[in-house]
């Protein structure tokens, strides 16, 4: 069964009076446990597709189903709750909260779940152990390297055990070595923990780690 189903999705952005079509009738299936790399030039619609799958943006027409849930059926609070349970986001610039320690950043998604503070802390610690930062729990983002920050962000993305991870250029701001470590981690999450991963990247080396590489151009898949 496909984990993510995208059917004839269209998305147009409006800037002033100008309409900018971004996705133009895109159809796509991503199976459970798949690892897909999305490539394409800037403005081709990669990040928009990621945002639509993650439910932080809405389609103009067409449909997107994730884990059997039609996202059009959700809105507002229910969509936010669904996102917190089923989707993990990984950003290019990590987007950690600078005034929170690593473990506090990882705890953030768990604040929305009914759970004791002790259990929350324990799960966050396990997530940080998983990404190899068990010894950096009390470090603030400014005290970590870029690679370590991204690993904290990955721990935050997986701490609520979502089925789908959406990574938007996760290695885009890292050197080759750190980027390699992040890709190793994503591969491990895919192999061992069966996470479905959709990764936007400009880097062909990064894309090679995926099971499939999809090319987007002008809002449609070119392969």
């Amino acid at each position, binding site marked *: 069964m496909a984990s993510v189903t995208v059917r004839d999705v269209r998305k147009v952005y409006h800037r002033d009076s100008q309409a900018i079509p971004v996705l133009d009738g895109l159809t796509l299936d991503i199976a459970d446990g798949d690892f897909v790399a999305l490539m394409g030039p800037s403005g081709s619609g990669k990040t928009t597709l990621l*945002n639509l799958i*993650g439910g*932080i*943006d809405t389609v103009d027409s067409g449909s997107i189903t994730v884990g059997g849930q039609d996202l059009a059926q959700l809105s*507002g*609070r229910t969509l*936010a*709750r669904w*996102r*917190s*349970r089923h989707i993990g*986001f990984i*950003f*290019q*610039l990590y*987007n950690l*909260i600078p*005034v*929170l320690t690593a473990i*506090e950043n990882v*705890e*953030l*998604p768990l*604040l*929305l779940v009914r759970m004791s*503070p002790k259990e*929350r*802390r324990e799960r966050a610690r396990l997530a940080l152990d998983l990404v190899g930062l068990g010894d950096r729990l009390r470090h603030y983002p400014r005290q970590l390297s870029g690679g370590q920050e991204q690993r904290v962000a990955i721990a*935050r993305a997986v701490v*609520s055990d979502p089925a789908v991870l959406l990574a938007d250029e996760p290695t885009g701001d890292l050197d080759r070595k750190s980027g390699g470590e992040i890709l190793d981690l994503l591969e491990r999450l895919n192999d061992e923990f069966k996470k479905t991963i959709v990764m936007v990247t400009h880097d062909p080396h990064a894309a090679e780690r995926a099971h499939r590489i999809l090319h987007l151009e002008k809002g449609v898949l070119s392969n």
Partner: protein
Amino acid sequence: MSLFSLVLVNLGRNKLRTALTVLSVVVALFLFCSLRGVLDTLAASIRVGSEARLVTRNAISLIFPLPPAYRERLAAQPGVKTVSWGNWFGGRDPVDPGDFYAQFAVDAATYFPVYASDIDLILAARPQGPGVVPAGVDPKLAAFFEDRTGCVVGEKLFRRKKWRLGQTVTVSGTIFPGPWPFVIRAVYRAKDPAFGEEALLFHWKYLEEKGMGGSGAVGWYVLELSDPGQAGSVSRAVDALYENSAAATRTETERAFQAGFVSMYGNVPFLVGLIGFAVVFAILLVAANTMMMATRERTGEYAVLKTLGFDDRTVFLLVLAEGAVLTLGAGLAGSLLAKLVLEGSGFNAGGFLPPMTVSWTTVAAGIGIAVFMGAVSGVFPAVRASRLNIVEALRRVD
């Protein structure tokens, strides 16, 4: 970590800005409660006046005296239980002319029984003689009654001046010129702080003999009523008695008499209240601006929180809570500080007013205003953060 600790962490981001905002709210609420405290004090000065006593004074003005002969006719009025009288002395302390306190010449034999329910005698000198006091007077005042120049002083004045029993204090008369030596024979404490404890009371007879050449002009009469419910009819009857005399009277309850003093301040209480609200409003704008700046700087972070699954309502409450915690904490501090500082200072405008008081109602109003400030200053940034378009906000971060 909890949502509340997230609020506190956010407040601690820019410590200087938070501290300055808190300080501005503390100062605003301190000023507001202090200014309201002035109104509370004026209200207390009215409250202390009894409804069971009437004050009869010259109808033209308090500064014009009444003849001594009135007292027999007043005492004969139906409904009048006791008649007492007194005069404003208006002297200055020659040692420290700037440190003013009130002095009253009172008919002690009637004054102390009439005001027995308002004061307690806490210190009294021993009498030298047999210790005889008029009927109805506390025997503790025996030494005071033995001494023509004796006086009874309020506890606060006594302590502030570091006086002792038996000490002679000299007052320079302004209305009744010359040096006036008084010997402290007793100290009183007010049962209601608003009654005041900063007056010096001495024998009216002493004033009459030394200052008025025996003319016996009276500043005002105090009529104790046998039935407070008759205050209206008695006061009308008294004023009717002297309607066509050279010294017509104006009689009203002691509370109304006190209220008359407050009314002399005219629109000052209104202006004081207005200034208090103006200060609060100005600080409200500052707090709102600070909250707007703080949330604007964190637009990207709110987008991240929403991406992680925080719904609009949770983000709204997080931002609103920041403003509320900030202003509520500062409001509590400012309001309570005003109560502690003002009431601790014991300032009483030289005895013209009761000691400064900040009522709990004012403190509650201050805290209420702080909550309102928190809500108003936080609601716009909270709405803005909750309605944030995640995609737009994340694009700005990138």
